[in-house]
Each structure stands twice: as structure tokens, then as C-alpha cells.
């Protein structure tokens, strides 16, 4: 148990002046353990693992495998040393089958030709041995997220990896899937594989990991046995300050309905209903959570509320009027929108931080002189917003492209929360965001709610909704499977049952039903 299989020593890596991803990092993993590599976004954990996997090159430092010094210049080198990595964004070719994906790059051949039979056989035997059932002839495009993840792991196993790196593996899984996934990881460990999990989710570290190494701002804070360290200690070491007291959502000072969704139906192009007779109210001064496995109507709901999709039946009432049909006129009614995909919809990657954060202010009278911008005033506003949200950056004029995910999201949130007049639609506002940024964003959203605005929070992170919302609706296949008035009185398991459609709440909220 105590033989280090891998040791990384004195690893240094910087991306240009001032951006240090790894500063003399030391990291050591023992054979047959599940090791958490924890830290905030931008702490350098993914960079460290990319160095190990040959995707980035360290400027200094040494890597020892079984006490022998090795050099890794490419993923191929890493694989030949028995190191495999499952990326946060899956690396599957949708058009190919599971078997083809698994053997891609190491295709079995017979008489010089691609031996599909052997590939399928390999997948079958691996999935049997490691208890990861998956159909080798299925096309990757048709798999659900959890199965795709299994295929990724099989890919790594097919290359005889001894050390498997998983980059935030549970970000896309439901609680039930996560549980099952953890059992599979334990099976892998018991069969002698060594696993490194990059994560910042503390409960998961506690649930499955043997040891933890914490990074902060590119430095190793330390390596600990998980059994010897408490969650709050881990959190403190990750952030460097005392963690916030656990948040209990305030009783909502619920006011008048700001946004009323009434019997909305949306049909897909082939007549399949994506939203079925959906009704709910969002009141001023409340934060309403939208819970559900992805793909159960969240996208369509957000589409309807932001003018992207016209519902086939039903209507939406915003501030006592009919919802306008375009996002810009919806915004004029005081609605703000934090989109799910910050890279494509949230920011303009080619623009500067200032341009991004002040984009909405630019239509504002007091930032204009005739057709011209008041550039000094915009800078002042830009600084006010970025400071209010603690955006860590060089200069306001820098391209937003170089910000870390968390800081980029803070820019988006600063812009939208600042502009919010009545309603904020927050679609996955903290996905892939580190603990520090998450706290800032949550604090600001909570302040906005306390100021009497209505917030619709769509999130795949149950913890987030439980921390912020008192009331929530659970979507399943385009319907509201349940409307929970007090989340604190509902267990996570029960929520999971609603999410999977195993359980449904029959009587919908009476007020809506009588409509």
C-alpha cells in the first residue's frame, strides 16, 4: 500500500508572465489507492495532470514512475508508461461504435485489416472484468452521459493503464449514477489500479478517496489521509480562509408573481413534446430552483423564457404583461439572463473584460453621448462591477479569453446581476466554477433575491439548489414531477426519485391547477 507508484517533483509551469499554474509542485501517489487532487479552479490541478499525461510540458521538474525517472512528451508516451486520462469533456467520436472508440489508435489487426470482432471481444471482456456493462456495437452518439464515461474508462483500460486520471468525473452525473460510478471505481482499485480524481467536491472526496493532495495557487499545500482530515479543514486549505458557515436559505419574502408560466407546451420537430403543460409562478423575493437530470426540458424552458423558442400552446406572463418575443425586448422588461454556455453565449471571447462586463450598460443613456460611448464612465463601471465580484485579472483591457472559468463566469454574473430589474434567469450559473467564485456568485444572487427580485435557478448541482432555494420544481420528461415548497424537508434520495421519474407528485399546486 505504501509504495509510491508515481512521484512528481518540483514541477514548474507558467503560461506567460504572471500566470503561474504550477510552482514547485510535488505530488506522489501510492499503488492501489484512490487519490484526490483537490483545489479551486485555477489552482493548477488540471495543468499538473496534463503535464503528467503529456498534454502540457513542464518548464522544470521530474517525474518518477516506480522510482525510475521518465520523460513524457505526448499522451502516447504517457500511455506507454501505463498512465491514462479521462478528460472532463469526453473524447469520443460520435459516429463510431463503442468498440471502435475504445481501440482507436491501438486497433487490433488481422491480415493488415481492422479486426472489428477482436475489438468487440476486447470491450466485452474488459467490461465484464471491471463490471462496466456496455454494448460494444452501440454508436457513441446514442449513449447517455454515464455510459460515455464508462467507455472513456474502458478506453484507458484497453491501453493497460495502471494509473487512471479522472478529471472531475462526477460533474455530469446524477446522485444515483455517481453512487454506481463510485462502486465501479472501488472495483477498479481492488483489482489493483491506481486512481487520481481531480475534484473540488468535498463530500465525494470523503466518500471514496483514500488520500488527498491539496493545491492552492499552483503550490502543494499538503497530502493527507482522508480519514484524518475534516471537510472544513480541506475547504480551509483549498481556499486559504475559513469556509462559510453552511447556508440555510432564508424564508422567502415572497411578493407578487413576477413571472407566471401557464400551461406551456413545446413540441419538437417530430411531434414529441419537450414541455408538457408546464405551469409555475416565480415571485419577487424568491429564488426558485429547477431540478432535473439534463435533457428533461430545462433547455426548452429556458428557451421559452428567453424568447428563443415560441411555445406551441400556453403563455408566459411577465410583470403582468405577455412575455415579449425576443430576448432584447425581454431584457427591456428588466429580465437578466445568465446562459448555460458561458464560452459561446455568455461572453465574447474576442472582446476585453471591460467590454464584456459593460455590454449591457452600453445601451444605457448615461453611458452614451449621442452615438458615442463615454469611455471613462464605462471604465469606472467596469471596475466597479469586476471589483464587486472579485474578478481576479490583470487589467480590464485584457482579453477575456485568458480568464479562468470561474473568473469568466463572475464577469457574466456581474453584468447580468447588475442589470437585473425584476427577474434573473440563471442557467447553471456556477458550473465548473471553483469554491471561491461560487461563494461570490451565490452571495450576490442571494443579495439580489433579498432586494426583492425573482430568481429562477436552473442547476444540475443539487447541493447548489439546496443551499440557495427554499422552493423548487423538479422536471422530468418535460413535466413538473414535483413542486417542493420546502427543500430542507425533502431528502436527497427523494429528490433523486423524482428526478428519475420513479416517483411523481400527483396533485400539482392547487393555485396553478385551478387556473
Amino acid at each position, binding site marked *: 500500500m505504501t509504495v509510491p507508484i508515481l512521484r512528481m517533483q518540483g514541477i514548474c509551469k507558467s503560461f506567460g508572465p504572471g500566470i503561474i499554474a504550477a510552482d514547485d509542485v510535488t505530488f506522489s501517489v501510492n499503488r492501489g489507492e484512490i487519490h484526490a487532487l483537490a483545489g479551486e479552479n485555477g489552482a493548477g490541478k488540471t495543468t499538473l495532470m496534463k503535464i503528467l499525461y503529456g498534454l502540457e510540458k513542464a518548464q522544470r521538474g521530474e517525474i518518477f514512475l516506480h522510482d525510475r525517472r521518465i520523460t513524457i512528451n505526448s499522451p*502516447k508516451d504517457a500511455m506507454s508508461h501505463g498512465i491514462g486520462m479521462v478528460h472532463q469533456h469526453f473524447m469520443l467520436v460520435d459516429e463510431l461504435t463503442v468498440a471502435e*472508440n475504445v481501440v482507436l489508435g491501438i486497433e487490433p489487426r488481422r491480415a493488415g485489416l481492422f479486426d472489428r470482432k477482436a475489438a468487440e471481444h476486447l470491450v466485452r471482456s474488459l467490461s465484464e472484468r471491471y463490471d462496466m456493462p456496455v454494448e460494444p456495437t452501440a454508436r457513441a452518439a446514442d449513449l447517455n452521459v454515464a455510459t460515455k464515461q464508462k467507455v472513456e474508462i474502458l478506453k484507458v483500460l484497453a491501453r493497460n493503464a495502471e494509473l487512471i486520471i479522472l478529471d472531475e468525473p462526477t460533474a455530469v452525473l446524477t446522485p444515483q449514477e455517481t453512487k454506481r460510478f463510485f462502486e465501479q471505481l472501488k472495483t477498479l482499485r481492488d483489482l489493483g489500479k491506481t486512481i487520481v480524481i481531480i475534484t473540488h467536491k468535498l463530500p465525494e472526496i470523503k466518500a471514496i478517496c483514500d488520500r488527498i493532495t491539496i493545491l492552492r495557487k499552483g503550490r502543494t499545500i499538503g497530502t493527507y489521509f482522508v480519514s484524518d482530515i475534516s471537510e472544513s479543514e480541506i475547504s480551509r486549505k483549498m481556499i486559504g480562509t475559513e469556509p462559510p458557515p453552511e447556508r440555510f436559505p432564508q424564508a422567502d419574502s415572497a411578493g407578487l408573481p413576477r413571472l407566471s408560466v401557464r400551461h406551456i407546451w413545446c413540441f419538437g420537430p417530430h411531434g414529441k413534446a419537450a414541455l408538457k403543460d408546464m405551469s409555475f409562478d416565480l415571485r419577487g423575493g424568491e429564488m426558485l430552483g429547477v431540478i432535473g437530470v439534463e435533457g428533461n426540458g430545462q433547455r426548452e424552458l429556458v428557451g421559452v423564457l428567453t424568447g428563443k423558442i415560441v411555445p406551441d400552446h400556453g403563455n408566459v406572463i411577465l410583470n403582468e404583461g405577455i412575455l415579449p418575443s425576443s430576448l432584447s425586448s425581454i431584457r427591456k422588461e428588466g429580465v437578466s439572463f445568465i446562459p448555460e454556455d458561458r464560452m459561446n453565449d455568455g461572453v465574447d471571447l474576442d472582446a476585453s473584460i471591460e467590454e464584456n462586463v459593460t455590454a449591457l450598460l452600453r445601451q444605457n443613456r448615461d453611458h452614451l453621448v449621442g452615438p458615442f460611448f463615454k469611455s471613462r464612465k464605462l471604465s469606472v463601471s467596469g471596475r466597479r462591477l469586476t471589483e464587486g465580484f472579485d474578478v481576479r485579472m490583470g487589467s480590464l483591457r485584457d482579453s477575456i479569453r485568458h480568464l479562468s472559468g470561474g473568473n469568466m463566469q463572475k464577469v457574466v454574473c456581474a453584468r447580468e446581476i447588475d442589470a437585473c430589474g425584476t427577474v434573473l434567469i440563471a442557467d447553471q450559473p456556477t458550473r465548473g466554477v471553483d469554491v471561491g467564485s461560487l461563494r461570490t456568485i451565490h452571495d450576490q444572487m442571494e443579495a439580489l433575491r433579498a432586494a426583492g427580485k425573482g430568481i429562477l435557478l436552473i442547476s444540475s448541482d443539487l447541493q447548489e439548489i439546496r443551499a440557495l432555494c427554499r422552493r423548487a420544481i423538479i422536471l422530468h420528461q418535460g413535466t413538473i414531477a414535483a413542486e417542493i415548497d420546502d427543500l430542507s424537508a425533502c431528502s436527497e434520495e427523494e429528490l433523486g426519485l423524482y428526478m428519475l421519474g420513479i416517483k411523481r407528485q400527483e396533485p400539482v399546486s392547487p393555485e396553478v391547477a385551478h387556473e
Partner: protein
Amino acid sequence: MSDLWNLLSAPEFYAMVLQLATPLVFAALAAVVSNKAGVLNIGIEGTMVLAALAAALFSTWSGSAFVGVVCGVGAGLLMGGFFALCAVRFRTNHILVGIAINLLSAGLAVFIVYAITGNKSDYPGIAMTPWDVPLFKEIPFVGDVLFRQVNPLVFVAVLCVFMIRFLFRRTVLGVRILAVGKNPVAAASVGIHTRRIKTVALLIAGGLAGLGGAYLSLGYMSNFNTGMVAGRGFIGIAAEAIGGGHPVATALFALVFGAVNAFSLAAQTFTSITVPYELLNTLPYLTTAAGLVVYSLIRYRQSTHHSSKRRISHEKSVGD
């Protein structure tokens, strides 16, 4: 009507369809291979022009049609290599490289022909000897169409269709080309040299376009002229799109375009009705445009259908 009936009942018409479809099949296969590698290769047209010229030149110089064909393929490979150099090695935009190749080829062909002969459009070539397939040629009708006086490259085209199908179904290279084309990041993450694979695919495409060009100047005709490719490279790309990238389906659509082309030529001899031949000449291109519109409508329906289907299967598996 009797004109039409006479036309459709004559084996010569179908033989002409085959002849006209052959260059389209080569062009379409070149488009298949490029597209699978994730490259929209509009340089096929220009590649065919230069290949046709090279085939004519070298067949005359060497006195052998076979040498001409080999040199045509060589010219195709060269252009494929040039495309790869620009688009893969130096990461130039694919469309821009394609436009450059097309303009370069058109200009270069005129220049070379003028430099050698002093006229600006034509250069003679040595035609390939057509084959008669013994026994088979005696089959009534079918024998006349398929096995009598047929250019060897027609058989090569048919062979290529199945070779390309085999490439993507059964070979490691084919699977890797697919992976590189559909998800280069994923392919690179498992250690596949994406640039190398793309280059190989573009070379194969260049070679196929080269065969198409050589067929035009040494098979379909026995000389080169500068306007002879006449958009066939683009029609090939259209056939690929309508065939959805499947080699056999793509070849069948190339055959359809060949048939329209043959019809537009034959209809000029009709006596009962007179349609201006300029109008008839536009028929292949009109069909191409119409085909693409129909295709994209079908494809649009399918894709929306597919995405909703995918959502269902996702829900199902989550519900299990």
C-alpha cells in the same frame, strides 16, 4: 415523345451515361475521402483540370495512354499534397486553399498549353483503347452498354467505389480518417497523428481526382481543352453531399447526374421539339442545385428526428 422513346431504348444512350458519369464518380469519391477527413475540398475541380492536362501532355510525349493516366494521377497526388501542405501543415482555411487551387489550375493550364502549342485552349492526347469483354459483350443490350467498347477507366471507377467502401469499413486507416474528420481532438488524445492522417486522405482524394481528370482527356475525349472539366469537380462534391458520404450511394447519385448530362446532350438532336441547346446545357447544373435542395430538406428532417430520438433513448436509459 417518340424522340424520347428512341433515346431511352438505345443502348448507346446508356453507354453515354456511363461515360459521362465516370469522371463524376471519381470526383465524388475524392469528395467522400476528403469529407470523411473533415476537409471540404473544393479544389477537386482544379485538380482535375491539371490532371487532365498532365495526362494529355505525357501521353503524347511518351506515346502511351497508360503513361498519360499514371501522370494524371501523379498530378492529382501533387495537387492533393499541395492542398495538404497549405491546409494541414500551414493551417490555411480549406475553402481559400480550394479557391486558390482552382484559380491556379485554370491559369496554369492555359499558360502551359499556350507555352507549348501557341494556341490557348487545346492539346492533343492519346486516347486509351476501349475494351471489349469477351462473352459478356454478347449479352443483348446489357452487353452493348457495359461490355462493348468500354474505357478501362470506367471499370476502374467501379472498382474504386468498392475500394473506398472497403477502406472505411475494414481498414485501420479508414477508421482513423473517420475519427480525425469527426473529432480531431479525440483522435489526437489517443495518439493518432491527425495531420498525417489528413494528409494521407487528401493524397488519396487527389489521386482519385487525378483519375477523373485523366479520364476526361484520354477516355471521354482524346485531347485536352481548358474548359473540359466544366464544373464536374463541384458536381462530384454535390453527389457526395446527397449520397451522405456513403461511397455506393454517392456513386449512384453521380450516375444520376451523368444521366442528366447525357440526356441534355442527346436532347439536342430531338426533332419533334426544339429546346435551345444553351438551355439544355444548364440541365446538369440545375439538377445538381435541385438535388442539393432536396437533399438538405431530407437531411434537415432526419437530423431533427434524430435529435429527438436521441433524447428519448437518453431518457429511457436514465429511467432504467
